[in-house]
C-alpha cells in the first residue's frame, strides 16, 4: 500500500547543494523520495527517520535519516506532516520544547519570582558556610584589603602606652575565645565617625570618636569584645563570601562579566546581618561576664546610639553608618541586660584608661603589610 505524503517539496541530498523538488511516498515502512523525472533519490526506512525541526509556518518542518544525516527533507505543516509524524517512532521525534504562548509566561514569571526569593534567602546561608574552610592566609589578605579601602587616608593612632593597654585587653578577651587568630586592633584618628569595624583575619579598627565619647572603659572594652566576637564567629568572611557569591550568581544569570571584574569592590561593601549582630552581642556578653567585666558598657554605648536615632539631622549623618549596620538597637539593648547578682571588677586602671584616651597624641600613616 502506497501513500502519497507530499508533492513538490524541497529535498537536499546532503552531498551537493542542488535543490531537488520531490514527491514523497510511503510504501509500507519505506519512505521514497522521487524527483519529477521519476528518479528515486532516497528510500528511508521509517525506523531511521528523524524529525530535526517541527514546522513553524511559514518555516517547513525538517526531517532527516540516520542513513543520510546530512540530507534534509522539508515538509510544510499540514496533512503530510501529520501523517509522517504519526508514523515515526517516538524516540526519533523532536525533543519537547518549552512553550512560548503568551499565557505560559505567567507561569515562568511566577516560578522566577519564587526562584529569586529562594536565591536571596537560602543561597547566602549556604554560601556563608564556605567561610569555615577559608585558609587563614586568604582571610588575612582579604581583611587587609577591606581595611585599606575602609580607612582611606585616615591615620593610625600610635602612642605606645595606649596601644599596649589595647593589646593586653585584646589578649585577655582572646583568652576566652577558641580561634587562633592574630588580632590587629587599631585606633583610627577620625573624630567624625562613631564606628568600630572588624574585617576578616582579625583586623579591627576603632574610630577615635568612640574613645572620646565613651563614659567608661567598660564601654570601649564592650565594643572591642563585640568586634572580636564578629571575628571569632567568622561573620566578616561569611559576609564577604555571601556578597561575592551573590554577585557571581547574578552575573551568571545575566551574563555580565563587568560584575566579575568589579567583584573586588564588593569586598568593601560588607554589612552584617541582624542575626550576626545579635550573636556577636551575646558572645561579647558571655566573654565579658567570664572576665568579670560589666557588659553594661556595651549597653551604654548602644543606648547612646539609640538616643541619637530619633533626632538625626544633616549634622548627625555620621550615625547613619553605624545604625545601618547595627539594626534594632533597642532590641539589642534589652538583650544585653546584665545579671544583677554578679560582682564585676574594673577592666583597667585609671592610668591605663588615660593612656588609651591619649593614644592619638601620636599618629602614623595607616598601612597594612
Amino acid at each position, binding site marked *: 500500500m502506497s501513500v502519497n505524503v507530499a508533492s513538490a517539496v524541497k529535498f537536499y541530498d546532503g552531498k*551537493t*547543494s542542488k535543490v531537488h523538488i520531490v514527491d514523497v511516498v510511503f510504501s509500507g515502512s519505506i519512505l521514497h523520495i522521487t524527483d519529477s523525472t521519476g528518479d528515486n533519490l532516497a528510500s528511508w526506512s521509517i525506523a531511521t527517520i528523524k524529525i530535526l525541526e517541527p514546522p513553524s509556518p511559514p518555516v517547513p518542518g525538517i526531517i532527516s535519516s540516520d542513513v543520510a544525516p*546530512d540530507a*534534509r527533507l522539508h515538509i510544510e505543516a499540514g496533512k503530510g506532516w501529520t501523517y509522517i509524524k504519526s508514523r515515526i517512532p517516538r524516540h526519533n521525534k523532536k525533543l519537547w520544547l*518549552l512553550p512560548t504562548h503568551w499565557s505560559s509566561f505567567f507561569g515562568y514569571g511566577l516560578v522566577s519570582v519564587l526562584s529569586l526569593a529562594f536565591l536571596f534567602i537560602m543561597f547566602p546561608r549556604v554560601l556563608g558556610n564556605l567561610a569555615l574552610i577559608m585558609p587563614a592566609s586568604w582571610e588575612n589578605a582579604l581583611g587587609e584589603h577591606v581595611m585599606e579601602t575602609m580607612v582611606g587616608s585616615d591615620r593610625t593612632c600610635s602612642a605606645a602606652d595606649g596601644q599596649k593597654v589595647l593589646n593586653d585587653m585584646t589578649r585577655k578577651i582572646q583568652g576566652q575565645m577558641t580561634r587562633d587568630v592574630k588580632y590587629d586592633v587599631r585606633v583610627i584618628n577620625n573624630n567624625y565617625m562613631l564606628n568600630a569595624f572588624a574585617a576578616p583575619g582579625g583586623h579591627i579598627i576603632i574610630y577615635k570618636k568612640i574613645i572620646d565619647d565613651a563614659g567608661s572603659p567598660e564601654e570601649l572594652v564592650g565594643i572591642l569584645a563585640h568586634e572580636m566576637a564578629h571575628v571569632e564567629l567568622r561573620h566578616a568572611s561569611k559576609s564577604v563570601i555571601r556578597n561575592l557569591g551573590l554577585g557571581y550568581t547574578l552575573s551568571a544569570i545575566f551574563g555580565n562579566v563587568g560584575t566579575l571584574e568589579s567583584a573586588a569592590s564588593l569586598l568593601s561593601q560588607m554589612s552584617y546581618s541582624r542575626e550576626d549582630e545579635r550573636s556577636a552581642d551575646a558572645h561579647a556578653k558571655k566573654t565579658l561576664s567570664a572576665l568579670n567585666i560589666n557588659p553594661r558598657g556595651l549597653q551604654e554605648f548602644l543606648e547612646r546610639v539609640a538616643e541619637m536615632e530619633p533626632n538625626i539631622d544633616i549634622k548627625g549623618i555620621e550615625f547613619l553608618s553605624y545604625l545601618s549596620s547595627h539594626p534594632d538597637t533597642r532590641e539589642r539593648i534589652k538583650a544585653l541586660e546584665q545579671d544583677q547578682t554578679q560582682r564585676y571588677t574594673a577592666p583597667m586602671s585609671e592610668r591605663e584608661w588615660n593612656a588609651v584616651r591619649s593614644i592619638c597624641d601620636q599618629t602614623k600613616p595607616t598601612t597594612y603589610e
Partner: protein
Amino acid sequence: MNNESDMAFEEPEASPEPTTENKPIKPGKAKKYVLDYDGKTGALYKLFLLDFFMRIITIGIYSFWGKTRLRKYIFSRHALDGDRFEYTGTGGELFKGFLKVLPILVILFVPLALQGVNPLFSLFYIPLVYCVGIAIYGATRYRYSRTRWRGVRGYLDGSTIGYANLAFGRMLLNFITLGFAIPSSDIAKHRYIMNNAYFGNVKAEFTGDSKVLFGAYIKSMLLVFFLFIALGGLFYASFAMAQNGDYSGYDQSQYSSEKKYDDMNFSEFNSEFGHLAGELNAHTFIIATASFLVIFIPFLIFPIARSIYVAALMREKMRGLKVGHLKFMCTVTAGKLIKHKMANALILLLTLGLGFPYIVQRNIRFMVRHHIIMGDLKAFQAEQGKDQGLTSGEGLETGFDIDAGFF
C-alpha cells in the same frame, strides 16, 4: 516564502537546471540577490522573555539553550534564493563547551577579581587578552560548522593558535602605532578567517585591502579629536566663567543672597535645608552641567565618529570576499549607520531597555537590507565538505561575554 523570485532583484530568466557532474561551472548572467528575512518581532520578544525567566529559574544555565533557540529561530527565518538557512547547534554543545573551559576561566578571573589583594594579579590580563583571540576563532569555527544552506554546511580550516597569535600581535601593533595600524589589523584578522572558510567544498577567498580604509579611519579619528577639543573648550570656558563669576547675562547678586530661593519657590525647602541649598548656586550648576556633558557625550561621540570607519570596514569586508564565483556587496554608509544606531539608542532609552528584542530585529533587517550577493545561485554548486567533528563549542566566548559575530 511563496516564490523564490521575491528574493532576487532581477527575475532569473527561465532558470536552467544547473549541471552537476564534472563540468566547469559556467555562471549564467550575474544576478543580484538579497537575503530574505521574515522573522517576527513578537516571536523574538517571546524568545528573549523565555530566556530571561529561564535564566533566573536555572541560575543562568538555561542561557545556552536560550541562545540556541534564538539562533535556530533567526537562522530559519533567513532565506537565500528561496532556501532557508538552518542552525544545527544545540544547547548541550554550548554547555559542554562552557564546562570545558571553566577551569581556564577560574584561573584567569579569580586573580583578576583579587587585584586589590595583590596588584601583580593584574598581569593575568595578558593571557586573558590572548585567549580572546582563541575564543573568537573557536566560536567562529563552531558557528560555521553548525550553519547549513541547501543541506551543505560551513567549515573553518586554519589554526586557532595561529589566529590568536595574529590577533595578539596585531593588538600590540595597534598599541605601538597609537591606533594607526587598526585598519590594516582589522583586515589582516578578517583575511585569516575568510581565507580559511568554506561553504561545503567551496573555498572562500578574501582579497580586501586596508588601504581604502585608511582615509575613513583618519576621518573618524579627526572627528573624535575635534569633538573632544570642542568639548574640552566648552568645559574649560564654563569652568573659567564660573570661577570668575562672569555669568554674562545672569545678575550675580541674584545668586548670592537668600532671596534667590524665595524667588525660586524654595522658601519651605530653604528653612530646613538652607545651608544645603546654598551649595546649589550657579557656579556649581554650570560646572556640574559641563562635567556631565564631558563625561557623557564621549559615549555618544565615539560610536558615531567610529561609524565612518565601521561602515567602510563593512563594505570592504564584503567587497573583498568571493565564494566560488559569488561576489558580495555591502551598501552601508556612515550616514545610514549613524542614523540606524542613533535610532537604536533612542529606542532603548525611551523603552528603558525593554526595546532590546526590537533592536535585534532592526539590526537584522538593517544588515539584510544592505547586503547584496552577486552571481548565479542556480549555477552555484557546492559539494558537502569535511565535517568539523566538533562536539562542543563557544565556551571561551561565553565566558568572556564577547560576540565573535558571524562574518
